C-alpha cells in the first residue's frame, strides 16, 4: 500500500534501529518465499537476496523517496528497504490482487513510484541506462532529485552497463551506480567471466569517481551512497560504487549452488553476516538491547506470517487484469 510504503520509507531513512529491523524483515521474507516455492504454493521462479540486506537498506537510507531507483529481478530486498510492505511483495509473488502491481508480474516484477521504485528489471543491465534517464529528468527540470541503479557484478559485462555509464558521465547526470558484487552471475564465479577483481576499476574508463564499499555494513553503504548522491545533486556527475557482498542462496529457486568452493558460504555467513554484524555494533553502542532484538525478531516473524495469510486470502489476479494497463488512456483533449 502506497501510504504505508511512504511511512516505512521514512523509518529507514531516519532510524538505524529501523534499518536493523528492515534487514531482519528482508531475511525473513526471503526465507519464507523460498519455502512457499518449495511447498509448491507458487509457480515460476524467484531470486532471493539473503546476505545482501545491508546493500538494500543502506542505499534506501541514503536515497530520498523522490529519487528514482532501478533494480533487478533479485529485488525483494531493495523493494522492502524502499518501503514496499511484505504484503506488496508476497502478494505479487503469489499472483494476488494485493500484490505490488496487482499480481500480474510475479517475483521479478515489483514497482512503487511513490517511493521511487521503477519497475524492476528481469533483463540483465536494462536498469542501468534507465537510471541515467531518470537522472536526466532531474537535470533538465532543474530539480535536486537523483537516481540510483542497483545491479549485479555480472551485469557489468553487458553493453548497457558501459553505454549507461559513459552517457551519464559525459552528461554529468545525477545518478549513482550501485554494483552488488555478490561474486556470482548465475552459476559462474566472477573470476570466470570478468578479468578484474574490483569492478570499481571500471569507473576509470568513464572518468567518474568510484569506491569499494563493504556491502555487509549498512552504515558503510549508507555513507558511501549519501556521499555519491550529494556529489550527484551538486551537479558533479555520476559515481560507481562497488558493494562487496555475497549471495547466500543459489541463483534462483532451483539452484542449490553446487559450484561454490567449499567453505566459501560458511565463511561469509559465520564471519560477515550483515545482520549479525550490525546487531553487534548497535548493541555495543547501546542503541539496541538484546530484549529489543528478540522483540524485533518476533514482530517481524509475525508480520511475514500475516502477509502470507493476507495474500492467501486475497483474490488471484482475474482474467480481466490481463487486459488492463497495456496502453495509457488518452489524455483529455487529445
Amino acid at each position: 500500500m502506497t501510504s504505508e510504503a511512504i511511512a516505512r520509507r521514512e523509518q529507514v531513512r531516519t532510524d538505524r534501529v529501523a534499518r536493523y529491523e528492515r534487514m531482519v524483515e528482508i531475511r525473513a521474507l526471503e526465507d519464507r518465499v523460498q519455502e512457499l516455492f518449495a511447498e509448491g504454493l507458487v509457480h515460476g521462479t524467484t531470486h532471493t537476496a539473503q546476505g545482501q540486506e545491508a546493500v538494500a537498506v543502506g542505499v534506501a537510507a541514503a536515497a530520498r523517496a523522490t529519487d528514482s531507483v532501478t533494480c533487478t529481478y533479485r529485488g525483494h530486498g531493495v523493494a522492502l528497504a524502499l518501503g514496499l510492505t511484505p504484503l506488496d511483495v508476497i502478494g505479487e509473488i503469489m499472483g494476488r490482487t494485493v500484490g505490488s502491481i496487482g499480481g500480474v508480474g510475479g517475483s521479478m516484477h515489483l514497482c512503487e513510484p511513490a517511493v521511487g521504485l521503477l519497475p524492476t528489471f528481469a533483463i540483465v543491465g536494462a536498469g542501468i541506462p534507465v537510471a541515467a534517464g531518470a537522472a536526466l529528468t532531474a537535470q533538465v527540470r532543474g530539480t535536486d532529485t537523483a537516481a540510483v541503479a542497483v545491479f549485479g557484478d555480472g551485469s557489468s559485462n553487458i553493453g548497457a552497463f558501459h553505454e549507461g555509464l559513459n552517457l551519464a558521465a559525459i552528461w554529468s547526470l545525477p545518478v549513482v551506480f550501485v554494483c552488488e558484487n555478490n561474486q556470482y552471475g548465475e552459476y559462474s564465479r566472477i573470476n570466470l567471466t570478468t578479468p578484474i577483481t574490483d569492478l570499481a576499476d571500471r569507473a576509470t574508463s568513464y572518468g567518474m569517481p568510484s569506491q569499494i564499499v563493504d556491502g555487509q555494513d549498512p552504515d558503510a553503504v549508507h555513507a558511501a551512497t549519501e556521499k555519491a548522491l550529494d556529489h550527484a545533486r551538486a551537479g558533479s556527475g555520476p559515481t560507481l560504487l562497488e558493494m562487496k557482498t555475497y549471495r547466500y542462496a543459489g541463483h534462483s529457486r532451483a539452484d542449490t549452488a553446487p559450484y561454490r568452493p567449499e567453505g566459501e558460504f560458511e565463511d561469509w555467513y559465520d564471519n560477515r553476516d550483515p545482520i549479525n554484524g550490525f546487531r553487534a555494533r548497535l548493541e555495543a553502542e547501546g542503541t539496541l538491547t538484546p530484549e529489543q532484538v528478540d522483540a524485533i525478531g518476533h514482530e517481524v516473524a509475525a508480520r511475514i506470517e500475516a502477509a502470507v495469510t493476507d495474500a492467501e486470502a486475497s483474490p488471484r489476479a482475474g482474467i480481466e487484469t490481463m487486459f488492463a494497463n497495456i496502453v495509457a488512456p488518452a489524455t483529455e483533449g487529445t
Partner: protein
Amino acid sequence: MAKMRMNQAISAALADEMRADPDVVMFGEDVAVAGGPFKTSDGLLAEFGPSRVRDTPISEMGFLGAAVGAASTGLRPVVEIMFIEFLGVALDQLATEAAKFHYLSGGKLTVPLTVRASTGAGLGFGTQHSQTLEGWLIGTPGLKVAVASGPQTGYGLLRAAIQDDNPVVVLEPRVRYSTRAEVNVGDDAVIPLGVAARVADGNDVTIVGLGGTVLTALDAAGRAQGWSADVIDLQTVYPWDRATVLESVQRTGRVVTVEENPFGGGWGTDITSVVGAELFGRLAAPPLRITAPDVPVPYGKHLEARYVPDAEYVTAQIDHLVSHGELPPHWWDDGEVGQ
C-alpha cells in the same frame, strides 16, 4: 531409437554435429561447466573440451557478434540465448550483420551460424521471460527460423541448422524440454529446413501448428467430432513450406493456424494471407487464426493457461468454423473482458 527428453535430444544433436565436424563450436551463458541452464548441452564440455565448448560472460551482443565473425571465417558456431528475450540486446548482430553478410560480400562469404533460444509461456517466468518472439525474426531475408515441437524435431532441426551455410535460428519451446519420447538419431533423422511435416491426416480442415502449439493442434484434432483434420508441424517458419500447406488446404478447404503469440503480427498472418490469396474462391470457410490475445504474457498459472490457446478452445473454434462456415469470436471478444 532411444527415449529422450527434448533437452537431451538437443544435447545429442550438438554432440553428433561436433563429432562430425571439428569446426563446430558452441558457447553461451553457463552452457559448459553447468551443462546449460536447461541442460541442453550436458556432457559436451567433457567430450569436446574447453576450446570448443565455452561459457561466456553475460554479454549477448559480444558473443553473438563473435559468433558472426567466427562463422564468416571458418567455424560453425552454435550460440545459446537462454531466453529469446535476451536476443533483444544482440539483435543487430543477427538480423543486420549475420543475415546480410552473404549479400554484402557479393556471395563470397557464408555465415554458418546457429542461434538457439528457449521460448514461450507456461512455466510462470513472467512477462519478460515468456514470449515466443519469432516475429522479431521472420521477414529478415538471409535468416532461417525453425521451431522445435518436441524431442524428434528438436534433434533433427538443430542438426540441419548446424549443417546449413546460413544463419539459422532454432527456437525451443521451454515447456517441451521435459517432454520425453522415442527419438531417432543419426543422419537419417536430420530434418531439412524449409519443409513442413504432416503429423496427422484428416479431411475437413488443415491445422497448422508451430513449436509448442503442434501438440495442442494434435490434441484438438483428437477431440474432434464431426470433422477431421490434417495437422501440419510447420517446423521452419521462415521461409515456410507453401507446397505442403497449400496441398493440404486444397483437399480440406479450410485452414486454421494455432499460434502462441498475440494476434497482431503473428506468423499465421503470413500463412493465411497466402492461402487466402492462392486458394481464393476454393475455400469452404474463411482462414482462421487462433492466437493469444494482444496482451503481455501474464504471470499466474490460471492467467498463463488462459493466455496460451489450449486444445479445448482450438476444438471449439474449429467446431464453429466448420458448422457455421464463418469465423468464431475470440474468447476475449465476449464483452466480459477487454476493457
